């Protein structure tokens, strides 16, 4: 079997989720009741038998490191390979690299030492359940230098404006990479290539003063290299704004999306918290809601997502909201179209109301 190593490159990911990224990078933003965004690419890699994964962290990575630990939750606490979290820490006086190439240059040992023949590079903003073995098969069959992953989205939303789009010919070859607002072929910020090819690309980019591996190493060379496009068919959510975060979170309440994303044969793993089952009181009323473990629900919750350990007191009403870990909602409080970050407390009879297009976001550890 071919060996693949993974790189999760957070270098270009902006902290665009307002209050949710005040204290953490977007890869560490909680999602879907018990996960964080980075759980998806790591689980996808782990499920694709990728046993050696580097995370190129740049900013606000404290909660990311706390979450990933030694990679045990993804079965990545290994003697061979495993999980490497690589924050920016380099002191090479001869270093002339810029942008994310600093990461590739200063962590080149990860690439040269790995026994893998192929490398997958992925971001964390495209939530999906993908098998990279399938991508590799198609990559090898196409004979391409690089294979990039895209999704043909059914409906264009504002979050797709910022994404790169692909024009693909009938053989699956990429003929253009652009920002055409009408195109539905959304590049998913994932590509696979041979390790030696990546190594050459990094050297070449640095030698030419480039600062962006994808833009300068792949996109700019489109006329000269063979780029194949792999079309991903499953559940997909591009999250690069509060609005897209909120919409994609609540779309999980539709059973179809849930089953597409959380597959029995390819589970999404996350750090285990050892919470007990959730307790629903005699008077609780819950409808169309995703609920994680360790919650105690005495109130009324509808069309919402509750993360682990949330307490909803009697008489409280929560609608169309996302309530993160360990929040406490006191009696008779009313929340509608609200995102509460972790450890918030909403006291008696307070009312917070946002609108679906602009949910009311409350930063971590706020009491009101």
């Amino acid at each position, binding site marked *: 079997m071919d060996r693949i190593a993974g790189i999760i490159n957070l270098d270009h990911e902006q902290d665009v989720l307002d209050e949710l990224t005040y204290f953490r990078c977007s890869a560490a933003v909680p999602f*879907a*009741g*018990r996960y964080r965004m980075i759980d998806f690419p790591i689980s996808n890699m782990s499920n694709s038998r990728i046993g050696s994964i580097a995370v190129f962290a740049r900013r606000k990575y404290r909660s990311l490191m706390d979450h990933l630990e030694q990679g*045990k939750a993804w079965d990545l606490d290994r003697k061979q390979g495993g999980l490497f979290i690589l924050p920016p820490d380099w002191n090479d006086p001869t270093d002339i690299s810029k942008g994310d190439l600093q990461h590739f240059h200063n962590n080149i040992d990860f690439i040269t030492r790995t026994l893998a023949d192929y490398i997958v590079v992925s971001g964390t903003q495209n939530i999906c359940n993908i098998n990279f073995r399938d991508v590799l098969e198609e990559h090898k069959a196409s004979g391409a230098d690089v294979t990039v992953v895209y999704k043909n989205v059914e409906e264009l939303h504002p979050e797709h404006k910022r994404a790169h789009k692909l024009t693909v010919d009938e053989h699956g070859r990429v003929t253009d990479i652009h920002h055409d607002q009408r195109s539905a072929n959304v590049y998913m910020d994932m590509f696979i290539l041979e390790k030696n090819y990546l190594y050459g690309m990094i050297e070449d980019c640095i030698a030419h003063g480039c600062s962006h591996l994808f833009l300068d190493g792949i996109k700019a060379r489109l006329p000269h290299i063979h780029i194949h496009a792999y079309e991903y068919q499953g559940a997909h959510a591009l999250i690069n704004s509060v609005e897209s975060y909120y919409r994609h979170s609540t779309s999980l*309440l539709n*059973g179809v999306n*849930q089953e597409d994303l*959380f597959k029995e044969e390819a*589970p*999404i*793993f*996350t750090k*285990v918290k*050892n*919470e*007990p*089952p*959730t*307790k*629903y*009181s*005699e*008077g*609780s*009323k*819950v*409808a*169309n*809601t*995703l*609920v*994680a*473990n*360790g919650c*105690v629900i005495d109130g009324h919750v509808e069309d919402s*997502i*509750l993360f682990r350990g949330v307490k909803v007191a009697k008489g409280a009403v929560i609608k169309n909201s996302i309530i993160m870990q360990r929040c406490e909602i006191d009696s008779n409080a009313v929340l509608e179209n609200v995102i509460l970050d972790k450890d918030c407390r909403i006291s008696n009879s307070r009312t917070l109301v946002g609108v679906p297009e602009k949910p009311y976001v409350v930063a971590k550890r706020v009491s009101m």
Partner: protein
Amino acid sequence: MKKECVAMLLAGGQGTRLKSLTKQIAKPAVYFGGKYRIIDFPLSNCTNSGIDTVGVLTQYEPLILNNYIGIGSDWDLDRKYGGVSVLPPYVQSEEGGGWYTGTANAIYRNIKFLHQYDPEHVLVLSGDHIYKMDYSDMLDYHKASGADATISVIEVPWEEASRFGLMNTNDYGVITEFEEKPEFPKSNLASMGVYIFRWDVLKRYLIDDADNENSSNDFGKDIIPAMLGDHKKMMAYTFDGYWKDVGTVASLWEANMDLLEENPGLELNDHSWRIYSKNPNQPPQYISHEANVHNALINEGCRIHGDIGHSVIFDGVRVGEGSIIRDSVVMPEVKVGRNVTINRAIIAAGSVIEDGAVIGDPSPESDITLVADEDSVIAKSYLEQTIK
């Protein structure tokens, strides 16, 4: 390197009174409380009490138990020195071997395991009870009193006392007499099956007991009476928390129902004393539009479209539209179809309940219905009645 106290957990019980729930698994591996197995309680108690060396004595149907315990990492018992060791019966080159003949024999046959740690004290536990207990407090009491053995006891209602092994004590908590299930109890202090022995003392008794051909090699029947007969100092340590023997279908059901009380005797949502368990890694539970859930414990991975009242639902359970579940325990990965009615029942892991089935009797005096595999008598009679 020495360990002050090593725990020996007796996990070989067959648990025949749990009927088909233990047909293929040992009793300590039986499910409890929406996400746990019974053995999670003594193992978590050990970790929370700072006891990091635990021998688990297995015998009956060990496959699932061995696999479940693994290297103990779920209970933080994967240690460089100590940690958890699964100790099945084995054959020795000269003495021969065979099954453990009793609880005392199980420890006797693992004297070499205990020797490795040269402990001062040995904590003997059973894998049959649900409780949260700080064994380190009991160990402190045992050391302070200078006892040769300390037995943890709990007050039980006088009318039930004759079902238990009872300790008669003097005013100082010294055990003067032990009676196994007496007809006319003189005490209502029941043994919880939690013992701490000075290892040097216990070892002598285990060796003598092994030489005695008439012995049944049991702690309650042989070792404790022999020590009392020799006037060894034996103390009763009174525990006043929640403790429940879940040895029968009815008591297992009751203990699950106890968790649904407003202020349950056993609080699982307690960060100071977590009960650890193997995590099934499933997405959050989904409660649908048409669902109605009240007074319930529900675990991850469930998809609930029906009406759940006063019930405990384990991970990965599906409940279809129009189904009503009351006063029941539904174990992992059960698929309940549409318009099913379940009352006062325990549904074993992996069962599939077809549309329209009616299970159990709602009247409060009725027996608890157990639905397990098709070989189970109860399940069969129910299957004939209800599932086409």
